[in-house]
């Protein structure tokens, strides 16, 4: 397990796919847990419509997870040492492709969700 989350070397395509799936599953689980917790904590007394509040909470959830993920990345790089980060080597990128997927995916997801929230609270919308 430690190899999956703290090893940045590329071994095989099978391992790579396994690693990406594992990252996605863990990220999904963590997002759900954070979201569930935040829905019970923040915006409880807000007078906005419930759906809007829940969507706002989800954006905060992504943000919170993003912070956690960045902390994890820092720990990852610290443990592997500066010498293992070969930024000019294509193989290095194959090793961190799971991390990159989550990083970019989170950002993209945040903007997609914020855009859909904007659409809902648009004054011309009856919803």
């Amino acid at each position, binding site marked *: 397990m430690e190899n999956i989350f703290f090893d940045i070397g590329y071994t095989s395509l099978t391992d790579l796919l396994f690693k990406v799936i594992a990252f996605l599953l863990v990220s999904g689980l963590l997002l759900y847990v954070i979201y569930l917790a935040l829905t019970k904590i923040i915006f409880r007394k807000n007078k906005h419509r*419930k759906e809007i509040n*829940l969507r706002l909470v989800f954006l905060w959830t992504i943000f919170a997870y993003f912070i956690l993920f960045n902390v994890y990345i820092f720990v990852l790089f610290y443990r592997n040492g500066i010498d293992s980060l070969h930024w000019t080597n294509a193989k290095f990128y194959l090793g961190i492709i799971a991390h990159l997927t989550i990083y970019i995916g989170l950002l993209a997801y945040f903007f997609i969700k914020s855009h859909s929230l904007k659409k809902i609270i648009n004054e011309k919308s009856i919803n």
Partner: protein
Amino acid sequence: MATPTIIIGIGTSGLYTLENAQRFYYETYKTNKPRNVEFIYIETNESNRPVGTPIGNDITRVYISLDNMAEMIAELKTSCNNPSWVPESRVVLAAGLGAGGIRACGRLAMWGRNQKGDNFGNVINAITNAYAKVMHINNNDANLAAQPTVFVTGSLTGGTGAGVFIDMGYLVRHIIQNAKDIYGLFLLPQEPKVIRGFEVMYGNAYGAIKDLEHYNKVENNYKEKWPNGFTKDLEAPPYELVQFISQDYQDGAPAISTLSGLYKMAGLYLFLNIAGIYEKRRERLVDAAGNSLIGKYGTFGLSAIQFPKDQIQELVSSQLSIELLHRLTESTEYYLNGQKRPISRASIKQSMAVVFDGILESAFATLNTVEARDLLVSIDKDSTRINKGEIKGSPVEFIIGMFTSTRNDNYHAMVNNNIKSALNVFVDNIYQQVDNAMESTENLYYAKYVLEDIVESIERTLSYWKSIGLSSQTQNWDNELRKLAIGCTKSTYKSVFEHDAVLKDRLNTIFELMKMHLSIRVLVDICKHVREGQIKLEGSNHELPKLQFFDELIKKLNALIGKTDELENGSISFARRLNDIKGDINDTTLPILRVYPSNSFSKECEKAKETYTQRSGGNVRSITEVIQQQNILNYLKQKQGGKFNEEIYLDFLKAFRLKVDTLNCIEDFNIASYIRNSTEESIRTARKATSPFLKINRVFTPSPYLPRFVVGDDTNEITDVLTAFRNQNYNDFPDTIDGKKELTDLKNIVVFYDEKGNFIPITDLSYINLMKDAYTNVPSGLADENITSERWKNNRSAYTTN
């Protein structure tokens, strides 16, 4: 000993004379008449109404309608033995307003009966009631004489006065059988410069004088069968004494320039009689009659030296009223706590947008409850049932069923049936906003802007609702509802256990949207009511004001204060009254010399205004104070339903006069002392009284038997005046008991009165031949070419006296 007196005015001139008498009485005693006097006014012109003094009006109006004249004629012919004076239907139908200058029409009006009432009965009732009133006072006051005196006044130039004046004398004799005296005071047209165009006036007057002369002769009896069933065959003349006056002076001095000046003189004469000179006159007249010095006809001369305190007070009060009313119609500024502030339209707009949001919230909140059932609680329960699957059919159909317009047992039906309560909230709150604005700013423009900006907010809201797809159409709502119901079943947030809250929230949103859909019609109606005035909307207490209401008020008030010139004909206004006062003061043809401590009317007015400002502490009065703490909006609305101009005019004038009076802004002026200092000018004025208001071809020699005296507030002062006159060799007014009359309340004026008699107008009036021509000959170029000589003469006759 005062005498119970009834004064009857006939026709429009009779009314104006009574108004002047009432006004003089008010100016002197601050009441409209003494308790032993009644004023009655009989008129054929429905639009004429008495104008009161600042404390109101005490002239009883008796309207004798000329509607359905053909039927009136037919009935009179049957019930009164076909009197020969009754005109032909085709003649009277062309009469026009009032009696139309046809004497027989005036007479017909008094005798007739139509759907508006029994004219003859109404006149009898009015005189009987007046008689009962003065006698009731009489019975409770030992200082009053036992027999009443009646004065009948009017002009003999029109149809009404010249038509009924003889009947009126006999009618009074019939009703008040113990009448001490029945006097006539009739106005004649002045000596004509040109008679062309005035033939009706002079012809009528001649016909009337001729008829009166006929009944004044013992050999001619008044024989009529009246509509009340009485048959009269009377030998006595209709009046003990008839006094004629016109705008002319006998000595050829320039005639009184206006008819209103003549009404003023007639009014002054009647006022002096009820104020106390009647008894003094009568003592002399009895002696004069015994010595054959008066006869059946008389006239008089009257002049006065006056400090016009009342006119100054009225002018100042009018100016103060204008200033205060001007605040109501000021379009750029308003007063708050006595400070002038600009009206900021942008800030009103901004605050009204916020206010309307609040009103909308309150109105929607009232729709949450129907017959003590809280619909929001009910919707909560329904959302729980949906999530628990305790419903029949699909959730989408269930939700549609809750809010669709096609059912009559759901939330849509309940809210729709309760929409009046939302309307009440809208109307009451909007009214409240306008009312608050009116009360705090006392400015009609401000209140109008508040209303206009609330309506703008409504329109903006409606436009927004339209943009999100809402309308008042039920079909449209049902289509939108389906989309919303489908949306409710998607993304339910069950994974985070928030599905109950989310569905409840979504159903509440649909409920709010449904309220908007149902309120659209109400809000559109409010806009239509306010902007176009097409419909009438009422809340729980008030009708919603309209912009038109404010526009009309502003227009009327501007006309009332003379800011614009859009006054209805005959309406009273401050500007008109100011002009009248100034015109009256500057009218040198009136035999009244106006004197002032500062030698100037305008200086006296300025001084009075300065004193007012000083003594009232420089504070600007509020409208609420003037209208005695009433609500301004209610007050104006109530006045709009009545005689707006007259009522507002009187309310404001009365309030300011009272204040000016209470603060004693104008001091009395001792006229006797003025006369002593300006004797020559005073003698010129006194001399005017010895020339009567009538051009008679006869020299009136002074007679000690006829009334000639000076009236003032103190006998000693009058004696001083007469002494000053004697010192200048002026002796027309004798310094004897008979030559002086003290009326202690008659401040600021000294009146010179001289009565003449023993003439016969039908022969002695200097222009009687011109009048006879006008009576006899049809003028050329009349609009109605069918008028024959006979018909012309018939129109100028009302009694069978040939």
